[in-house]
C-alpha cells in the first residue's frame, strides 16, 4: 500500500469519527502489502454447470448402468492419451423445446487448452441458486465471509484504481463479503453495461457544452473545500459514513481513474455508428481492435462485452479481480438462415443459462459450456499475448476460476438422449491457470453413478471415500494465488497449487 493511500484513509477515518464510519476505514484491517500481482477471473457457470457434461464426461462403455446414468455414446467422446479430460462434440436440431439447431465442438478447445486446466471435484452444500453461488466464492463463509475476489483485491489491488470489478450483477456470485474489516477499496464494484460504463470514468471529456478540464478541476475543488463546508447540511451530517465515502471517492480514486484516461483505454466500441466517439472528442481503446477481433459479438452479446472489458481491466492494471458470466437472460444472435426452426447456433444463451437443463439437460449443458469455453479461449489468447513488462505474460499470473454453482442430477430416463434434470450437490470446478497443476484431475467420477468423489488435499491422490468441501476448494484457490491465509484456519490444499 502506498503511503498516500494510508494517509488518506487515516484522514478519512479521523473525519468519520469513531462511530459507524470507523468500520469503513478500519486501518487495522489493511495490513497486507501488495505483492507481485496475481489476477483472478471468476467465470460464473450460472445455473449449474454439470462437470460430467464437460471435461469429466463418461463413456457408455465405462458404466455398469449406461442407459440410466448421464453418459455419452463412446463415438461422441474425444479423449487424449495421458489426459483425464474428455470432450463431447454434439449437435442437435433443438435445445430442449426450443427449435434451435446447434453444433458444438469442445474437442478443439480442450485440445488446445487442457495443459492449463485443473478440475477439482466438489460436493457443495446448497442447491439454491443464490446460496450456492455465494458459497462458490466464499467457500461457504470459510474465512469470515470474505469473498475470493475481495481477498485478491485486498492483497494485490491496493494500487489499482478499481481492484474488484463485477461485470455481471444480481447473482450470489456478486455478493459482497460479510467481513467489515475488508478495506473499502477491495469491495466489489458492479459494472452494469461494459459498453457505456467507460463514459462514467471522466467528469468532463465528451460532455456537450461542458467545461475545460482546468475549469472543472477548479470548480470541483471550490465545491469540496469552499462551498460545501459552509452549508448547514454538511456541518450537521459531517459524521455520516455515506458522506465520508462519497467524499473519499471524489478524492484519490477519482483522480486515479481520470489520470489513467480510462474513458479511452476501456472503451470497447469503435468510433462510429452508435458510438460517434470522435464527434465528442473521445476515442476507442488502443486495444480495441484486438479485443473486438477475439470477441466480435461485443455489441450484441453481453458476455462478449464482459470478456472484452475484463481483458482491458487487467491489461491496464485497473483491476486484479474480474467477475463475469452469463446471466439468466435469453441471448439470440440475429442473422443466419433458418431451415427448420431458428438458424443454427443462433441461441447464444438459453433462458436461465445452465438452468435450462430443467427443460433440456444435454443440449442446454452443451450450448452453455461451449459458450464459456469460447470466452476462456479468447481470454487466454489475449492474456498470453500481453507482455506483463518483465518478460512474462499476463497469463502467467492469471487464474480463471469456473465457478459451477452446483451439479445436476446424474440419472436419465432409460436410453434418453434429452431429458430434464434437477439440481445436485455433487459436482466439480474447472480452473484454467499456469498457477495450478495442468491437465490434472483432482478426484474422480464413479462411472456407475455419475457421482464425483474427492481427493487427498496434500497429495492430490483420488480418494473414492472422500468428498471435497467448499472450504477446501476456496483454500486451494487462495493457495494457488499465493494469498496470505495465515490465521485463517483454512485447510491446507497444496494439491491445487502447481509445483
Amino acid at each position, binding site marked *: 500500500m502506498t503511503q498516500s493511500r494510508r494517509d488518506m484513509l487515516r484522514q478519512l477515518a479521523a473525519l468519520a469519527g469513531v462511530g459507524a464510519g470507523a468500520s469503513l476505514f478500519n486501518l487495522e484491517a489493511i495490513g497486507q502489502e501488495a505483492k507481485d500481482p496475481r489476477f483472478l477471473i471468476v467465470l460464473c457457470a450460472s445455473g449449474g454447470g454439470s462437470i460430467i457434461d464437460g471435461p469429466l464426461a463418461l463413456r457408455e462403455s465405462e458404466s455398469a448402468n449406461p442407459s440410466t446414468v448421464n453418459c455419452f455414446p463412446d463415438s461422441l467422446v474425444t479423449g487424449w492419451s495421458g489426459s483425464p479430460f474428455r470432450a463431447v462434440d454434439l449437435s442437435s436440431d433443438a435445445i430442449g423445446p426450443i427449435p434451435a439447431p446447434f453444433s458444438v465442438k469442445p474437442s478443439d478447445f480442450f485440445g488446445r487448452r487442457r495443459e492449463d486446466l485443473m478440475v477439482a471435484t466438489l460436493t457443495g452444500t446448497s442447491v439454491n441458486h443464490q446460496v450456492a453461488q455465494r458459497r462458490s466464492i466464499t467457500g461457504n463463509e470459510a474465512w469470515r465471509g470474505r469473498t475470493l475476489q475481495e481477498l485478491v483485491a485486498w492483497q494485490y489491488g491496493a494500487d489499482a484504481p478499481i481492484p474488484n470489478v463485477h461485470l455481471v450483477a444480481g447473482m450470489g456470485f456478486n455478493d459482497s463479503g460479510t467481513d467489515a474489516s475488508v478495506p473499502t477499496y477491495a469491495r466489489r464494484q458492479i459494472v452494469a453495461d461494459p459498453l457505456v460504463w467507460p463514459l462514467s470514468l471522466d467528469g468532463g471529456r465528451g460532455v456537450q457544452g461542458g467545461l475545460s478540464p482546468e475549469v472543472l478541476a477548479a470548480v470541483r475543488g471550490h465545491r469540496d473545500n469552499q462551498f460545501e463546508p459552509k452549508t448547514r447540511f454538511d456541518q450537521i451530517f459531517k459524521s455520516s459514513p455515506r458522506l465520508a465515502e*462519497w467524499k473519499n471517492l471524489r478524492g484519490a480514486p477519482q483522480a486515479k481513474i481520470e489520470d489513467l484516461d480510462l474513458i479511452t483505454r476501456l472503451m470497447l466500441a469503435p468510433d462510429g455508428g452508435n458510438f*460517434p466517439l470522435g464527434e465528442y472528442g473521445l476515442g476507442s481503446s488502443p486495444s480495441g481492435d484486438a479485443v473486438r477481433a477475439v470477441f466480435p459479438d461485443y455489441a450484441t452479446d453481453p458476455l462478449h462485452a464482459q470478456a472484452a472489458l475484463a481483458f482491458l481491466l487487467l491489461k491496464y492494471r485497473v483491476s486484479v479481480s474480474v467477475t463475469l458470466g452469463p446471466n439468466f*437472460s435469453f441471448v439470440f444472435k440475429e442473422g443466419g438462415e433458418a431451415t427448420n426452426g431458428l438458424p443454427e447456433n443462433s441461441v447464444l444463451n438459453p433462458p436461465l443459462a445452465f438452468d435450462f437443463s430443467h427443460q433440456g439437460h444435454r443440449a442446454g449443458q452443451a450450448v452453455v459450456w461451449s459458450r464459456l469455453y469460447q470466452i476462456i479461449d479468447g481470454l487466454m489468447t489475449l492474456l498470453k499475448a500481453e507482455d506483463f513488462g518483465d518478460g512474462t505474460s499476463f497469463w502467467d499470473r492469471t487464474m480463471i476460476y469456473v465457478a459451477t454453482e452446483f451439479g445436476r442430477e446424474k440419472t436419465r430416463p432409460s436410453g434418453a438422449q434429452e431429458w430434464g434434470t434437477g439440481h445436485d450437490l455433487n459436482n466439480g470446478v474447472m480452473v484454467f491457470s499456469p498457477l495450478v497443476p495442468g491437465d490434472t484431475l483432482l478426484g474422480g467420477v464413479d462411472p456407475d453413478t455419475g457421482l464425483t468423489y474427492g481427493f487427498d488435499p496434500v497429495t492430490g491422490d483420488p480418494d473414492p471415500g472422500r468428498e471435497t468441501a467448499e472450504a477446501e476448494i476456496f483454500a486451494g484457490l487462495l493457495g494457488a494465488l499465493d494469498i496470505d491465509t495465515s490465521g485463517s484456519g483454512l485447510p491446507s490444499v497444496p494439491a491445487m497449487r502447481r509445483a
Partner: protein
Amino acid sequence: MRPDLLLRGLTRALLTVAPLAALVFSSGCGGDEYATVSAKARVNAKSGSVWGRDLANGLGLQEWELCSELGAYDCISEAHRITLGGVEPTVLGIDEPLPNASVSAPIAVDRVATSACGLRFDRDKAGGAAVIFGPVLKKDNDRAREDVADTLVRRLLARESTKAELESLVALYDTLAPISTDLTRDGAVGMCVIVATSTEALFY
C-alpha cells in the same frame, strides 16, 4: 409525586427551555453560526432518477434534456442508471440499488450536472425569458453573480441561501479568472455545478 404536580413541573421546565431552544435552532437565513451536529448522521443517497428530477425542476429543463451520452444514451435512465443507484431487474437482474456508492458515481454526477447547467446557460443566453442566468448575462458583476448564486440555491436546494454560501459561490470567479477563457459562462455554469453536485443536493 402527584401526577398533576409532575405535569405542572414538566410544563414549567419546558417553558423555560423553549425560548432558548428556539434561538438555537431557528437559524433561517444567515443562521449558519447556529449549525449543530447530528449524532446519528443518518443520511441516504438520492437515486439518480430522484436527483435528476430535482435537477430538471430546478433548472427548468425536461428530464430527458439533462444529459445524453454521445447524443444517444440518456445519462440518468440508461448510461449511468446503475452507477447512480438505479435498478434494472429485467435484463441486468439488478433489483436493488447498489448498497454502496459506485466508484464512478461522483464522476457521473459531475457529467450530468455540467451538461445540464451548460444547457441552461446556453438557453438563457439564446434569448427569451432567462430562468437562472439572466443577471450575469445582462451585466456580469458581483451583484449579478450573487443574484444568480441565490437563485441556484433556492431552485436546486429548495431553501434560502446564507450569506456565507453566496460569498463562497461568487468567490469562484476569482478562482477561475486566471484559467478561464469565458469567465461569464464558466463562472455561472461552475456555480451551478457546485450547487447541483453538493452533498446537500445528492443526499437527504
